[in-house]
């Protein structure tokens, strides 16, 4: 067992850190958040430098690294700026599914444009839990035997208004013929409704997307391989790990700010880091962040080596990391005092972003239920 990054991994980490330091400006982030705008120029630069798609094989425009290296990049990005970092790390969430389950043609068609900064790929998880009638969401296209039609469906979609490639996941497909569909944004029947206004994550817009009789040709159908993990499971694992990496970066960033402030701010004739009350807060946060990093790296490693504990360890990492991010950002605001409450400092935004990713999608109540299930089953 080895507990050290390889030299290549250290180089990736360093490059990601330098890129974030140079490109992620906190005034710009404030503006982006106010306007709920995605930083396209930064995304394009991140693509040019190979940070986006770092885990795709070279023939699809990537660097042939794994999710582990992707996690290192995400951590450095959100450490410097939670909002910009999250928005970049969510810019290719549809890709992991295509990467793992797509065929050669699909990989070429959908992955390469992402690495070139020309496309964003996302996921639409169709919610069928509140569906009244039992009409299937997806049926065979009568006119084209190998094609399908998405009859009606609705989903909250990250980067919904920007994404060009949308991987549609849902639970009401025909169980005897499990498939996943890839849509393109400019097709007829793919429509955007409202923007979901949230506490944080406002640089990554979440839109409500509606599908109305969308015809999907054969080459956009992902056929599940028998016995292998299904695309929904892949998405859940990858999304949990990426969320935990975002959380790790946010916690580390908020901690960096807290230490800097505690070493600079003077009250009662000394630096506030001289007070044991502050010291112990910092010591506890440091401990939690170290534990988080070990867990998040372990989960990413497990994914790359296809470990059998993937299902549980991804939940554990997601649960722990997002809780630590929320706690660290709250405590960092506390150490900052009044300035920590103000928008012009990044800490309050880091807190709102941490709280938002903690509750987006599969919440920690769900993670606990899943972990418990795996313990007692």
């Amino acid at each position: 067992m080895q507990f050290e990054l390889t030299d290549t991994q250290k180089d990736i980490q360093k490059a990601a850190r330098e890129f974030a330091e140079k490109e992620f400006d906190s005034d710009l982030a404030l503006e982006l958040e106010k306007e709920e705008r995605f930083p396209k120029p930064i995304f394009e630069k991140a693509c040019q430098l190979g940070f986006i798609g770092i885990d795709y094989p070279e023939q699809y425009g990537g660097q042939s690294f794994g999710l582990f290296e992707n996690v290192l990049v995400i951590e450095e990005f959100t450490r410097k700026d939670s909002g910009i970092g999250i928005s970049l790390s969510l810019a290719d969430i549809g890709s992991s599914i295509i990467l793992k389950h797509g065929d050669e043609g699909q990989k070429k068609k959908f992955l390469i444009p992402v690495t070139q900064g020309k496309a964003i790929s996302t996921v639409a998880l169709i919610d069928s839990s509140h569906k009244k009638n039992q009409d299937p969401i997806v049926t065979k296209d009568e006119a084209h035997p190998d094609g399908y039609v998405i009859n009606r469906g609705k989903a909250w979609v990250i980067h919904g208004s920007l994404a060009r490639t949308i991987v549609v996941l849902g639970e009401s497909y025909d169980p005897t013929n499990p498939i996943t569909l890839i849509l393109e944004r400019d097709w007829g029947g793919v429509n955007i409704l409202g923007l979901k206004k949230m506490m944080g994550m406002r640089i990554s817009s979440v839109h409500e997307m509606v599908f109305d009789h969308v015809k999907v040709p054969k080459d956009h159908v992902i056929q599940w391989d028998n016995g292998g993990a299904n695309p929904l499971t892949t998405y859940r694992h990858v999304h949990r790990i990426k969320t935990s990496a975002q959380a790790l970066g946010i916690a580390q960033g908020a901690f960096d700010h807290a230490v800097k402030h505690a070493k600079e701010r003077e009250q009662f004739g000394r630096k506030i880091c001289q007070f044991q009350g502050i010291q112990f807060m910092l010591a506890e946060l440091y401990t939690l962040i170290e534990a988080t990093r070990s867990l998040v790296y372990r989960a990413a490693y497990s994914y790359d080596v296809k470990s059998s504990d993937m299902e549980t360890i991804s939940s554990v990492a997601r649960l722990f990391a997002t809780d630590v991010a929320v706690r660290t950002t709250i405590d960092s605001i506390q150490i900052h005092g009044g300035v920590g409450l103000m928008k012009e400092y990044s800490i309050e935004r880091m807190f709102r972003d941490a709280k938002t990713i903690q509750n987006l999608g599969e919440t920690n109540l769900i993670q606990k239920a899943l972990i418990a299930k795996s313990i007692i089953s």
Partner: protein
Amino acid sequence: MSIRLDEKQKNLIEKVRGIAQKIALRNREVDETMEFPWDIFKIFCENNILALPIPEEFKGGGEANLTCCLVLEEIARFSPGSSHMIAGHWLGFTPLKLFCNPSQKERYFPRFRSELAAFSLTEPAAGSDAGGIITEAKWEGENYNLNGTKIYCTQGHVANVITVFAKTNPDKGVKGLSAFIVEKEFPGFSVGKIEDQIGMRGTPAAELVLQDCHVPKENLLGKEGEGFNIAMQTLDRTRPKDAAISVGIAQGALDYTLNYAKTGFLMKEPLLKSQAVQFLLADMAITIEAARLLVYESATLIDEDRVSTKHSAMAKCFATDTAMRVTNQAIDILGTEGVSKEHPVEMFMRDAKLLQILEGTNQIQRLIISRSLLG
């Protein structure tokens, strides 16, 4: 100790609840726009809510601290920011209530029924440590001349009368502090930056700039050098009020969550069937009730003339921490809906965070409590 509200208090709470429910949506609107809600202010004036602690001889409500806390709690259940507006006003009024001479009372008390008061202690270098204040008040024969910059004055940009703390003797640390009644029309007084803050956004903190601001000697509050004592006596009496807002926020979050949980789902099961959710709700209720009793106790001690610095600090620290924990748990139960702006809970949490810091961070409260334990 047991708290049993009398009929008059019950009626007041009921009336206030009606108002708070009516302004709840407007409260959320100003959280977005950051505009001071004069319409809400007007409603509070018309219903004599701002005047509740003003003595009856000045046509105020003459209400005790406990009653004032009950009112703040009830309003905060629906509209935390609006409750903060009232508490900010009462924070501004408290030093005057405690230290005004008869002529100052005549001049100012009637105004506070319809004009906002504010309290301004903090400076860039003086947050937790009031000894770091550098704003100076020089005696110039007829007037005091105030120079300096104050920050984080709650709704200082809309207040008409502000208690400003400045040094009359810069060499004497906190013993050189004095308190002044400053009116916004005084020459040399201006409002600087208005903060874009995490919560309580309709009633933001403001920077106050004092540039050769001439304050007549009749506007010295108490005696020269008495400023620190005035500030501390004030905070002993206002910390339970921040605590009361916190209890209201926490209760509001619990109420909202209970209501939402009736229709929500967790992994295809009704939310309320989940024992994890049930236990979370139980924990929320336990801490809210404990915080509430601490608030009522600390407020009652003030009303019985047994004001306890320790109890006020404990109430402030515990209740604001409770509001943070409970709103955090409420969001976790609501999940994605919890962080959505369609529901008020995320605003409640942002509002709560502010209360952990203002009027003495919770670290300062712990310092006060431990000092009183160690003697």
